[in-house]
């Protein structure tokens, strides 16, 4: 009974992670410009791979493996926003344009304000 419950939790985590990765890939193809694509890839993609790592930890069933999987999960969750922010700032500073129908660009006169 206990191992069926553990298997069910693992299966839910695995399918959820794969579903998040699929949603991120669809968003990467469907969204109109660089910045919105980045929002799809760096949030849903990170959660997808993180859930799959957690599934490995739950499936192994011992504490050291679960701790390593949790450490990996936190590592991905901490580094993904940093890299996405760096890339977005570089692209905006260099002048890659926003989508034509986007309504607000808060970094438009960033150089003048600082």
């Amino acid at each position, binding site marked *: 009974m206990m191992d069926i419950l553990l298997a069910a939790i693992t299966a839910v985590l695995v399918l959820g992670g794969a579903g998040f990765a699929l949603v*991120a*890939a669809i968003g990467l193809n469907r969204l109109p410009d660089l910045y919105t694509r980045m929002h799809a890839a760096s949030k849903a993609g990170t959660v997808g791979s993180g859930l799959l790592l957690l599934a490995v930890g739950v*499936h192994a069933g011992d504490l050291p493996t679960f701790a*390593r999987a949790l450490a990996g999960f936190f590592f991905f969750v901490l580094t993904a926003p940093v890299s*996405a922010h760096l890339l977005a700032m570089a692209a905006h500073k260099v002048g890659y344009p926003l989508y034509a129908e986007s309504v607000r660009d808060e970094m438009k*006169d960033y150089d003048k304000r600082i």
Partner: protein
Amino acid sequence: MTTAEMIISYAVWLALVVLCVSFLLTVWRVIKGPTLPDRVVALDMLTGIVIGFIALIAIRTGFTLYIDIAISLGLVGFLATVAFARFILSRGNREAPKGDMMKTLTASVPEPRRKSAARRPSGTGPAVRRKAKK
């Protein structure tokens, strides 16, 4: 095969298929992406999907050592994205049409300073000293 193993086996198979589809979609964005940052975002996403593949292989085979490989791949992907961001920043814009944002952003950037040609003959090197003796 017990019930638990069967549940996990089916879930992992389905997840492998879904990850394959998302991998191909992301590769399509890498090929098609109109600008370089689009491709970099897609490559970052590709690293995440490969980490997912490694996790699924770890579940299937039972080797938990694969977790460490996944963590190190994530580190490499993070460093690659940071390096690409620095590269985009230093390369400048070559693809986007020059719009309003381009003007406002490049207005405050000064021209690179060049050595003035008039200053050069008045040096104190050996060749200049030889010329002055003559």
